[in-house]
């Protein structure tokens, strides 16, 4: 059974400041859900709540319900570590482990979880790099340092690292904002390829990008989800005035 992610009544705070107010939306399985909105509107915090990374920051907390295929990630007794194995994440800035080679970066998730079998690791690394459309570029330099790659390659390396542990969901927090248009196009192609296997939630500042890659889009403003719907409808016939003002560039 794969329902994707279903969020309801999600609230999040940094200290006493509330940054998310009663968010509810559904990111369907094997689909791409894009989140747009001006800086500081809470969309990054929102995705970080989905794999319980928000609470890693001192003073941060969140309440509500996030169902992954029917299981509540915020139910008492749920181990955030186990959740993060099922929900991978790619960050804004490429962050490969600098002391590890390309191979070790991709293998890190499994190896540090205790997988030793070399054949298994090789298979997984090749598959993950293939999924990240990076295999052909790095197959002869798997032992070079991960940070010796170009920015776009580093970000695809981070995607490979995230998909190597075979998550059910992949969260992407502005994955292209540090990349040039060519590298961005590669990542966008990749997203369309990856959604065959998993559910993707992507935060982006680039509305064209949201329109290109996603089926569903949510518009965040000041910690609230103003509008959520089918991407084409949201961009062509927004129901909310604020959404229309934002996508036509009248503010934000």
């Amino acid at each position, binding site marked *: 059974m794969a329902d994707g992610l279903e969020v309801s009544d999600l609230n999040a705070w940094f200290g006493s400041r509330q940054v998310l107010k009663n968010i509810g939306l559904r990111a369907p399985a094997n689909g791409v859900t894009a989140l747009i909105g001006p800086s500081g509107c809470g969309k990054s915090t929102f995705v970080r709540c989905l*794999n319980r*990374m928000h609470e890693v920051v001192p003073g941060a907390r969140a309440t509500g319900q996030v169902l992954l295929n029917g299981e509540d990630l915020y139910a008492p007794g749920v181990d955030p570590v186990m959740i993060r194995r*099922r929900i991978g994440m790619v960050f804004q800035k490429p962050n490969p*482990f*600098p002391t590890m080679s390309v191979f070790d970066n991709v293998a*890190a998730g499994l190896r*540090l979880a205790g997988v030793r079998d070399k054949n298994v690791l090789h298979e997984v690394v090749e598959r993950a790099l293939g999924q990240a459309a990076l295999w052909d570029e790095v197959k002869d330099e798997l032992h070079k340092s991960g940070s010796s790659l170009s920015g776009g390659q580093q970000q695809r390396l981070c995607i490979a690292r*995230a998909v190597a*542990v075979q998550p059910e969901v992949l969260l992407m927090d502005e994955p292209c904002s540090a990349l040039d248009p060519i590298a961005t196009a590669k990542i966008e192609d990749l997203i369309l390829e990856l959604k065959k296997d998993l559910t993707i939630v992507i935060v982006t500042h680039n509305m064209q990008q949201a329109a290109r890659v996603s089926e569903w889009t949510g518009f965040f403003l000041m910690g609230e989800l103003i509008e959520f719907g089918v991407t084409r409808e949201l961009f062509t016939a927004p129901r909310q005035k604020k959404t229309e003002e934002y996508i036509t560039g009248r503010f934000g």
Partner: protein
Amino acid sequence: MISFKKRVIVNRLMNFLAGAAAVLVILPLILVFGFLVYQGGSSLNLEFFTHMPKPVGEAGGGMANAIVGTLILIALACCVGLPIGILGGLYLAEARDPRLPWIVRFLADVLNGVPSIVIGIFAYTLVVLPMRRFSALAGGVALGVIMIPIVLRTTEEIVRLVPASLREAGLALGLPNWKVTLRIVLVTARAGIVTGVMVAIARIAGETAPLLFTAFGNRFWHSGLDQPIAALALQVFAYAISPYDDWHRQAWAGALVLITMVFLVSLAARLATRGLQRQTR
């Protein structure tokens, strides 16, 4: 308004003064080193490294036992200082509640400033009195205690330099916090921590005062870690205050060996740091 010509002159003068000050910084080291080579170089031969001290009155002999003794004392000190210093430093860098780290940090800086002879008295009370004899162990404890604050503070500083994004990348892969700390954060900080350890070793290698009533010194090969042990710094001290010319020359040579060891360790630390800078860019 100062004239252009005057400004140029003042500029040249200040440039010269600052450059001269920079050269003066290294002058004492060069003078010390040169003087040591001049006074002790002649006694420095293969025998010095491979032979034991000769009895009083006989010329020649070496400090093989003291060189080995210093290495053993450094190893013992590392056994005491490194686990406490590195684990403590990790805690200071990672703890969420800032109160305990504040106290520890402050007291570690105080400990760093405690005269080394006082640390020697501490080790004497802690180890020598209960064991009822001077020992290599006691010397190692004294030097280890001196290492702790240095290793602690450098580990903390370096671990803090590891970008938070790497820690988040590890957590997002579904790794538990302790694994991220040990296998990602600590490994990334490795080169910097090694540098801190080298600096600490360079610092304790030449310590004499805390060894006077702990390791005590020994004219023979040591016969166990619970027995007194020779150390270069102690031997240099003993020979330097002796009335024999031959011993004086040996003391100079011993000092030369000691300073060369410190130099090499510092150089290694510098090279390790260069590796770190390449990694984190």
